[in-house]
């Protein structure tokens, strides 16, 4: 299925990509030497997404912050979305590009359903498709400014992987994006095992989300966890974690060391 996500960019002002045909070589009428691009710098961004496989399926967590530079501008952004019956997609990076990717995936699911042949798209299919989408945009030097995480269970097979804005893609038993790569993955490597229960898996993700809240300036204490099993996708309501600040060293940091921080 050829991916047809492009507007007719021969007009300087685009009327929306659904109204016109495709033109892979889009140039502005105003300045023909300049190709039309989407995101070159992100504006509204989401931070880390974390994912682990566990006994019955896959758990994926993300906070609900939409940052605007250094400001936490939006505090209720849903960065985890179900796709079809078996898959969940989470996004880091520019939210407008994520919303566009959701439109593209919506078209994919609907077009597939129209075949009316009881075939549904599972996580590996969505992963492969997203990889093509991201890589092709990257080749036009017009990337979707996202790292996407993708997990699910279909026919007993658990699946979890990432796709970056460059089109790099991989699968693993535990993955993270953004700051989570640096802070959460090492914890996963030490503490993850194959037979974790739902409770153990949730505790592990919450532990890592807490570290991210402490140490990632873009993170907020309001998160969602998605649980994908053979029975489908369930995303929790947003909730906040307990945090700990009452260490003696915190309340009296400079005792014996005046002037220090």
């Amino acid at each position, binding site marked *: 299925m050829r991916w047809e996500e492009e*507007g007719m960019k021969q007009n300087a*002002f685009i009327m*929306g990509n659904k109204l016109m045909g495709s033109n892979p070589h889009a140039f502005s009428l105003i300045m023909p030497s300049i190709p039309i691009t*989407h995101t070159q710098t992100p504006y509204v961004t989401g931070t880390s997404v974390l994912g682990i496989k566990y006994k019955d399926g896959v758990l994926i967590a993300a906070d609900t912050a939409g940052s*605007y530079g250094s400001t936490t501008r*939006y505090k209720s*952004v849903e960065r985890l979305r179900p796709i079809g019956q078996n898959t969940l997609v989470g996004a880091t990076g520019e*939210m407008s590009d994520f*919303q566009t990717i959701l439109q593209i995936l919506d078209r994919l699911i609907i077009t597939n359903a129209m075949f009316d042949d009881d075939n549904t798209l599972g996580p590996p299919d969505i992963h492969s498709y997203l990889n093509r989408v991201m890589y092709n945009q990257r080749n036009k030097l017009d990337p979707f400014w996202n790292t996407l995480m993708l997990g699910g269970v279909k026919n007993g097979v658990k699946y979890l992987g990432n796709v970056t804005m460059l089109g790099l893609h991989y699968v693993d038993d535990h993955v993270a994006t953004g700051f989570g790569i640096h802070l959460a993955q090492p914890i996963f490597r030490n503490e993850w095992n194959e037979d974790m229960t739902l409770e153990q898996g949730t505790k592990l993700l919450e532990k890592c989300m807490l570290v991210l809240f402490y140490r990632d300036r873009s993170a907020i204490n309001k998160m969602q966890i998605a649980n994908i099993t053979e029975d489908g996708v369930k995303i929790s309501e947003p909730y906040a974690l307990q945090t700990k600040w009452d260490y003696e060293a915190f309340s009296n940091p400079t005792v014996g060391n005046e002037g220090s921080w």
Partner: protein
Amino acid sequence: MDAPHSMGTTIIGMEYAEGVILGADSRTTTGLYVANRASDKITQLTDNVYVCRSGSAADSQVVSDYVRYFLNQHTIQIGKAASVKTAATLVRELSYQNKSFLETGLIVAGWDTHEGGSVYGVPLGGTMLRLPFATGGSGCSYLYGFLDQAWQPNMSREDAEKLVVKAIALAIARDGASGGVVRTINVNAYGVERNFYAGDQLPLFYDELAPRPTLIHF
């Protein structure tokens, strides 16, 4: 990554119990000069949907004009009022598909039979988010803390309007790119009502003086 630069203006869209209030300041600047001290930054898209414009005046006007044109046709085709979500989606599509050309943040708000009052923020980049209240423009930086504390869900019409006017007045007090008068539009099931708060009628805050006749005698 640098923070994106903000745009002259303060705009607000806020849901209350029965509808929405849109509010804006009235200052348009070219560099340091105030080109228009009484602009109208709240623009009508349909009978029941309005948009607050911030950023480049030209860009926001052209987006509004296209969306008004599309919504006009759409209304004729479907035979009833367009929904706020449809209007916001059109604004979003134009903002997103042309993001490399445009510099405008918009707040789309109105009333329809499906959702009652709704407010959609469409900031730089073309993200679309439905929110109980949205702020925009350079002045909104000064309002995050204030509205975090002062906003309540399900306010009455009077309380919501007072809050919007107070918030814009606070932003005007600190933001050089915002000023002039406060204009508000209230949209609910019964219709649309415009209000005007002259610059000298706005509440006064810390370190501001009430005007009085000059003391100079000749």
